């Protein structure tokens, strides 16, 4: 029973957000946009949390600022650009697709392709390797002798 309660509390705890009630916008549509946007923005203080999850002061300030801008009529892209121009691409949790990040985006598929190719080549060579040449007469006699000894 106690374990169950603990489990329940843990589950609840996992969904708790750092967003405070007084930060929220009155308009549910705008608030939903703000929430979605703040989930993809990095908190620069904790670096591995989004500003949606972070309790850092700076994350709070940026959440408020982001909502101010959305209320003022900025599009999602404009808000993103506003922050990127100040904090750089690092503020985006998902790195943008551009020449500087090609290695990041193409690297893993490339490694996978090279490895796949190597394995495929190897398998093909194993399959096409010619059968061993037939046994010579002396070998056959030796084999017969060995088998007899065994029997």
């Amino acid at each position, binding site marked *: 029973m106690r374990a169950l309660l603990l489990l329940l509390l843990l589950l609840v705890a996992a969904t708790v957000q750092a967003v405070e009630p007084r930060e929220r916008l009155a308009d549910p549509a705008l608030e939903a946009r703000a929430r979605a946007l703040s989930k993809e923005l990095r908190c*620069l203080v904790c670096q591995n949390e989004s500003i949606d999850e972070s309790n850092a002061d*700076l994350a709070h300030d940026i959440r408020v600022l982001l909502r101010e801008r959305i209320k003022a009529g900025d599009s999602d892209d404009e808000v993103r650009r506003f922050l990127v121009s100040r904090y750089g691409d690092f503020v985006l949790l998902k790195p943008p697709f551009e020449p500087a990040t090609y290695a990041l985006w193409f690297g893993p598929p490339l490694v996978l392709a090279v490895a796949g190719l190597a394995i495929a080549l190897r398998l093909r060579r194993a399959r096409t390797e010619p059968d061993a040449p037939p046994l010579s007469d002396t070998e056959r006699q030796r084999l017969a002798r060995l088998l007899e000894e065994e029997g």
Partner: protein
Amino acid sequence: MRRALYLLPVLLVAALFVFFRMALRADYDPHAVPSPLIDQPMPAFDLAGTDKRLSGDTLKGEVALVNFFASWCVPCRVEHPLLMRLAEEQHVPIYGIALKDKPQDTERYVAQMGNPYRRIGLDENGHVGIDFGITGVPETFVIDKSGHIRRHYGAPLTAEELRNDLEPLLRELARS
């Protein structure tokens, strides 16, 4: 050919070690985020000050430092003697921006510790801080004569940085 292939893992591990060694350099900080504002015009601001207002125009035509600090910030107290020294020796104007600080606390801070700043702007809601892309205090920007940001220090200045990086840069900027 076959024999050469056996060397491959050794080479890969060697390359990895070179990479590790590079990452262990004393001056390499994996958490440092390069500011996109380098070589960009300084963000515009106009703040009430402890004495006179501080705005972008205040810095016009001179090489200057903009130092974000706060009375509640412990690392700022560590950095403070260096700023005092810099203000006395280098004759470079340092402009302070007090981040999220009450004016009376800022005033008490400089009264107690000494005041290296030519002027102090009060950024009580932290918006100017966000415009400069700072993630904490203290952070310091070097502004050139044309009002462009030339350097950003995202942590308390150290005596080493002052000697090896900031002072040569200030001399270079003063000449241009």
